């Protein structure tokens, strides 16, 4: 009976009791999951993806939710079909982790920080499979090998914080797979991860699915991942299923408007091939879009030379510096007026530090930073404050970079207040104009950050950065945390502003597709150095450095026909950037392979 679904969700409706009355999390959703199949559930943030999956586990109840309606039919291992929606929590306990496994979104917090990996892995085994300790440990080891964690024996005794994000996510996967569940629910298992690690995890899950025949319910909002993984796709929008179909059909023939707009918003790697300059994305349903390319000028605005930033590691008895984190090592580049230079690279390679060093939000150790003729490095603190009029920063996390207790209006007005640029009604007007600029209704001015969506918040951050009319904006992963559709809007906004105001961006990101979309120039960073740098087209079409090549290979492509297999990936873990104080790194030397296209000759550690 292979055609019989393992799980059938029928007319699911979930409500939450909140202080201001009931809130509907999922309104009406029905779909099936068949054995050995991967069903991807996509949709914007808040559309009810997680709630549906949690309902299947009957975990919504612990978050204050209630399954108000619907059936959750699950085909038990012993062949009985059970309606999980009205099953007793005691029985549920036996299904959870045993017959249905779940992988959660946040690898950083999904593990209990105070127990060892081994303990957390064996726990489920001992409960569900009645294994004794030794047997459970043996099985745990086997699981860790399965998910290809290096040195699995050692990992068992480590605590979660001692593992990198990718390794933690693998542990979570191993945990979910431990009892060989019939259904595996993966709730955005890679959203928080780097492309490279994401690629590995996706490949790993794919392999596991093939090997064990488990059905997978994969939740994501990343269409590229969907293209990579899915057999079938369910599109959700505001608590409802709006479309369902095989993956090819969804990508090639979307019927619902929402699906279409979603697909339109996804930047696809290679889309920009043959286009000389970045240009805004075409979004569905938005009238009168200005899609003109943004050429910029060739006039140099920012020149960075030999920038080096290290963080001391204190230790020993007298708390002296015993080693340094070489976060940024001899980095040089220039940015032209009205153009964008993107820095890409894995997490921890020093992108943010480089950006912050330019604004001297962290103090660089050495190097020259020249902004429009002004030597930033030589400024005293008041001079620096003045210099920051010309350079601003947008931070990665729109949730963290706004003060939760301040009204938006205030936050946007703050820079102008600080520099005494405007006051009174003039200030009001300016703030209102900035809101218009970033396409936010003026009625939002009196709101608080928590009353905004992520995209809206990021626009506030942009408005704040624009308030001082800067020449340069350092945008540190400004769109990474956003939904695709929102991301597209923010990107478009940034490009529009660039075209209008002649802004220059230092665009920091690890999303290659986005980078391809927005940049004039691209620098690839690895372990504190730029390993390859050049015009965007050259880097994407003709990557020379092995690391750049690996990076490109890892990027999932939003096209179900271009799936990658595990074999294509060969990542080495990044070596430690920590060196003893007496370590003298070599200077960076570059080879110009094409005009303006440089490759690092010095050993980068890759």
């Amino acid at each position: 009976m292979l055609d019989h679904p393992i799980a059938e969700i029928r007319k699911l409706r979930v409500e939450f009791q909140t202080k201001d009355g009931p809130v509907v999390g999922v309104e009406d959703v029905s779909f099936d999951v068949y054995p050995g199949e991967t069903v991807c559930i996509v949709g914007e943030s808040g559309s009810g993806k997680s709630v549906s999956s949690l309902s299947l586990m009957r975990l919504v109840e612990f978050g204050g939710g209630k399954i108000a309606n619907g059936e959750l039919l699950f085909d038990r291992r012993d062949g009985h079909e059970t309606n999980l929606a009205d099953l007793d929590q005691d029985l549920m306990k036996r299904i959870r982790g045993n017959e249905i496994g779940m992988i959660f979104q946040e690898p950083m917090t999904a593990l209990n920080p105070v127990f060892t990996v081994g303990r957390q892995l064996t726990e489920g085994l001992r409960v569900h499979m009645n294994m004794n300790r030794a047997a459970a440990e043996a099985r745990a080891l086997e699981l860790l090998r399965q998910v290809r964690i290096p040195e699995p024996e050692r990992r068992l005794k480590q605590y979660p914080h001692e593992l990198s994000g990718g390794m933690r996510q693998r542990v979570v996967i191993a945990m979910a797979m431990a009892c060989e569940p019939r259904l595996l629910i993966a709730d955005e298992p890679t959203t928080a991860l780097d492309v490279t690690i994401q690629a590995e995890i996706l490949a790993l899950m794919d392999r596991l699915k093939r090997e064990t025949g488990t059905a997978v319910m994969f939740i994501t909002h990343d269409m590229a991942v969907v293209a990579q993984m899915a057999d079938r796709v369910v599109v959700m929008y505001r608590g409802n299923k709006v479309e369902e179909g095989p993956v090819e059909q969804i990508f090639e023939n979307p019927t619902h408007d929402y699906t279409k707009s979603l697909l339109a918003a996804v930047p696809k790697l290679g889309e920009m091939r043959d286009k000389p300059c970045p240009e805004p994305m075409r979004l569905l349903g938005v009238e009168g879009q200005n899609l003109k390319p943004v050429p910029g000028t060739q006039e140099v605005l920012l020149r960075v030379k030999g920038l080096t930033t290290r963080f001391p590691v204190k230790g020993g008895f007298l708390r002296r510096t015993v080693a340094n984190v070489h976060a940024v090592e001899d980095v040089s580049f220039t940015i032209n007026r009205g153009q964008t230079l993107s820095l890409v690279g894995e997490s921890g390679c020093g992108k943010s530090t480089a950006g912050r060093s330019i604004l001297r939000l962290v103090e660089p150790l050495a190097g020259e930073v020249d902004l429009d003729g002004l030597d930033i490095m030589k400024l005293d603190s008041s001079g620096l404050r003045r210099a920051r009029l010309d350079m601003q920063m947008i931070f990665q996390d729109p949730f963290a970079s706004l003060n939760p207790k301040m009204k938006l209006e205030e936050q946007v007005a703050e820079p102008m207040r600080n520099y005494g640029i405007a006051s009174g009604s003039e200030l009001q007007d300016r703030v209102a104009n900035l809101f218009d600029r970033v396409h936010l209704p003026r009625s939002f001015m009196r709101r608080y950050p928590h009353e905004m969506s992520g995209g809206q918040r990021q626009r506030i951050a942009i408005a704040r950065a624009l308030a001082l009319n800067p020449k340069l904006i350092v945008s540190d992963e400004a769109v990474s945390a956003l939904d695709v559709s929102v991301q597209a809007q923010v990107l478009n906004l940034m490009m529009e502003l660039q075209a209008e105001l002649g802004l220059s961006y230092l665009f920091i990101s690890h999303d290659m597709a986005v980078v391809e979309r927005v940049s004039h120039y691209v620098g690839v960073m690895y372990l504190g150095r730029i390993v390859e740098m050049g015009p965007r087209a050259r880097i994407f079409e003709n990557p020379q450095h092995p690391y750049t090549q690996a990076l490109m290979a890892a990027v999932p492509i939003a096209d179900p026909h271009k799936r990658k297999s595990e074999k294509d990936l060969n990542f080495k873990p990044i070596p430690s950037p920590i060196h003893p104080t007496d370590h003298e790194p070599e200077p960076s030397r570059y080879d110009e392979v094409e005009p303006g296209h440089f490759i690092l000759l010095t050993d980068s550690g890759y």
Partner: protein
Amino acid sequence: MTDKDRLVPDEGLAPASTALPGAAGPLEELTQPPRSQWLDVWDQFKTHRGALIGGILFVAIVASVYLGPFVWDIDPTKINIRARNEGPSLAHPFGTDQLGRDMLARMMAGGQTSVSVGITAMLLALILGSFIGVVAGFFRRLDGPLMRLTDLFLALPLLPLLLVMMLLFREPLNAAFGLEQGIFILIVASIGITSWMPTARIVRGDVLALKEREFVLAARSIGTTNTRIITRHILPNVLSPIMVSATLGIATAIITESALSFLGLGFPPDFPTWGRLLFDATDYLQQYPERVFWPGMAISLTVLSVNYLGDGLRDALDPRIRGR
């Protein structure tokens, strides 16, 4: 619920950017005109049942203590030796004490002192604690010395300190503020400066964490000076632990004052405070239990109401919770 109407996909097809990340509820809020901050606080506060009761009770206590004497205008020091040790009656609803003084009047007079001591000592401890906590957390170099200072104060015994302060400052304070004011200032000061340490520690911890948050970095990048970072960004965000310390602080100060009375170091015996009244009445616990009841009740009620008030205020002051 009529979620249907709200869930209609909007034509703009830029869903999340105009709608909130929450599905149903907040959509409606979009159409509402924005409101002033304090109205929001009040709204949230109103929904917190405990807080509302606590708040009303606290206001009632404070009002009766300060305004009561205008209605019940018997002098609390008026001795009526013939009406000694009377039980509750119409003339003396709370009875009288061993000198025939009206207990109700004394309760109100005592409440004035106790409540003022509680509030002012709390404010003092709070200001000191928050200041030291913020400075220690914000300026790395001052962290060590300030935390050692905190240790020092933790180790200081309240009682000798009080005696020293009595000696050094009583005369000048009496000269400047009069006898009762002088002692009041002394007691408030001594309770205040021996109870700011926990606040300082908590605030410091929170500031240390906040300092690493990106919005502080963001503030710096838009040219905000240190002082403004502290006042605009740090302080509002450590408000809720401070509020909790504040409400606990009032309670501790009232209780500390009564303990000082017990040890003979507080207000002089002819100066009624709730703690003093309670202490004096414990000797008569068996004969006149009601005399213990009133001050005991007053202290407990105040502490309770202030605590619930604090709970509610903390929630109400946090816009994140307020939105839910």
